[in-house]
């Protein structure tokens, strides 16, 4: 059957959005309670009620949508707990748009909560992996990567940065500029973990974690939570906020958690997901007013700028050098302060989604960018493994 983007483009809108994070990095609320707060908060932002929800999308350890639905006492007729790491929430919006456009559900909620600070840092992830260990049939990563002691995930991104530098002459100063521009946005966000201005020198003098990535090239570890609500374009017209239409969506992945299996370490599947999203939306990168892109590390942003077509492959270093991504720059990027300075609870995709919605619906407060009609939210999960690109637009962009 022929795929007709017009069947989906602009047919579904995000009508509610909320997130939670703290300048201390700690929220002090359980994950389940945070999920409930976020679901109710996003619905309240939209002017809808929990009883309106008939589609539920989320991530978690076992059966996350079933567990939350049981807790809320609702009976969704559409459910999706696709797990692609930090890009899961962009994938959920893509899937929710398809489901709503097809009439499979009408009011969908995408939820997320994670409190790594409450769990404590350290070997949590490693222990979880050890728990999955069958000595006769280990996960490939345990057999082929873990024995070499790479720092995860920073070391995987450092490998990508090392090759980008060797091939294209990208410098540590250029990568640091991404952290500096992002911090400029964080000064406008009272919930950001770091709100003081930052200099390139401060990034370069922060401790090296995995060469060439310094500590300030790396995202935070904080608690955080959020939710968004989607419904039909028709119903969206009668709700509280300006609808934020899903104009385009695309997802692609190649490897999973092993960076050694990535076909080209300097080219992410964002090339594919971005093109698919642009084609569906009928836009080019030049049409994008605000970019919210996954910034687990500074190199993650550099690769996304290239793969999404904002500059050519290898040119991201020069592209960001003039502060283009910061306030007043030509491409306002990660306007909430990003995973580098605002919050990063292990999976960041919910927050770039919420910020894109706020920018398009004029709810971004002191960091509102003027005349935003098209925003791109670009998630990246695993280790540069699964990208999901959303083009979101105002009524004027329909």
């Amino acid at each position, binding site marked *: 059957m022929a795929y007709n983007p017009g069947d989906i483009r602009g047919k579904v809108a995000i009508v509610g959005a909320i997130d939670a994070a703290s300048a201390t990095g700690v929220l002090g609320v359980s994950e389940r309670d945070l999920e409930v707060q976020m679901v109710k908060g996003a619905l309240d932002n939209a002017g809808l009620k929990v009883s309106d929800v008939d589609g539920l999308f989320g991530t978690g350890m076992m059966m996350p949508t079933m567990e939350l639905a049981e807790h809320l006492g609702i009976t969704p007729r559409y459910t999706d707990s696709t797990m692609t790491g930090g890009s899961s929430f962009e994938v959920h919006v893509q899937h929710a748009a398809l489901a709503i456009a097809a009439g499979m559900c009408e009011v969908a909620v995408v939820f997320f909560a994670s409190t790594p600070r409450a769990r404590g840092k350290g070997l949590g992830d490693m222990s979880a992996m050890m728990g999955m260990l069958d000595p006769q049939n280990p996960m490939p990563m345990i057999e082929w990567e873990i024995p070499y*002691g790479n720092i995860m995930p920073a070391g995987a991104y450092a490998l990508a940065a090392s090759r980008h530098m060797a091939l294209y002459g990208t410098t540590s100063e250029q990568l640091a500029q991404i952290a500096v521009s992002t911090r400029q946005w964080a000064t406008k966000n009272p919930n950001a973990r770091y709100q003081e201005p930052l200099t390139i020198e401060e990034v370069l003098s922060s401790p090296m974690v995995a060469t060439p990535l310094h500590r300030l090239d790396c995202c935070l570890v904080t608690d955080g939570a959020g939710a968004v609500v989607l419904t039909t374009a028709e119903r969206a017209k009668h709700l509280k906020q300006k609808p934020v239409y899903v104009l385009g969506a695309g997802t692609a992945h190649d490897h999973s958690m092993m960076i050694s299996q990535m076909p080209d*370490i300097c080219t992410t599947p964002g090339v594919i997901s971005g093109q698919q999203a642009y084609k569906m939306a009928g836009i080019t990168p030049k049409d994008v007013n605000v970019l919210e892109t996954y910034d687990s590390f500074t190199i993650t942003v550099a690769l996304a700028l290239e793969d999404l077509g904002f500059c050519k492959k290898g040119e991201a270093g020069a592209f960001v050098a003039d502060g283009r991504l910061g306030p007043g720059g030509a491409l306002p990027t990660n306007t909430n302060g990003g995973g580098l300075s605002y919050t990063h609870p292990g999976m960041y995709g919910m927050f770039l989604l919420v910020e894109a919605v706020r920018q398009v619906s004029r709810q971004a407060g002191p960091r509102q960018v003027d005349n935003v009609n098209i925003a791109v939210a670009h998630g990246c999960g695993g280790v540069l493994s699964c990208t999901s690109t959303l083009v979101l637009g105002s009524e004027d962009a329909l």
Partner: protein
Amino acid sequence: MSRMLMGTSRVAEPFWEATKEKVLRLPFCKDCGKAHHYPRNFCPYCHGSNLEWREASGLGTIYAVTVCHKAGLPTMSAQVPYAVALVDLAEGPRMMTNITGLQDAHTAKVGDKVKVAWEEAGGGKHLPVFQLA
């Protein structure tokens, strides 16, 4: 140094058995001719299952390299800082490894030629690492 393996798979038994003799062995596809890594029961390029284990040259080129300034594994804390690399083997496959035998871990660069070396990994097995050629 002695290294820790946390599990080896049945499909890779010929790989790990060969490391007892410090031999690097790879699965080759007899249909399309390509070698692959990590080992699977089929060829990830043509998806045939007509595989054969062959000895590899042990030569390669650094595709990407980082220096870890803290230990990614508790057992490697005494080695910090150490180099972790992706090496493109002469036979085609890419593997994660360490670059060892360096005075300064930062010496290894993308594009450097390397050759396999071996570190004891228990049970007579060895873990393949690489040194500058």
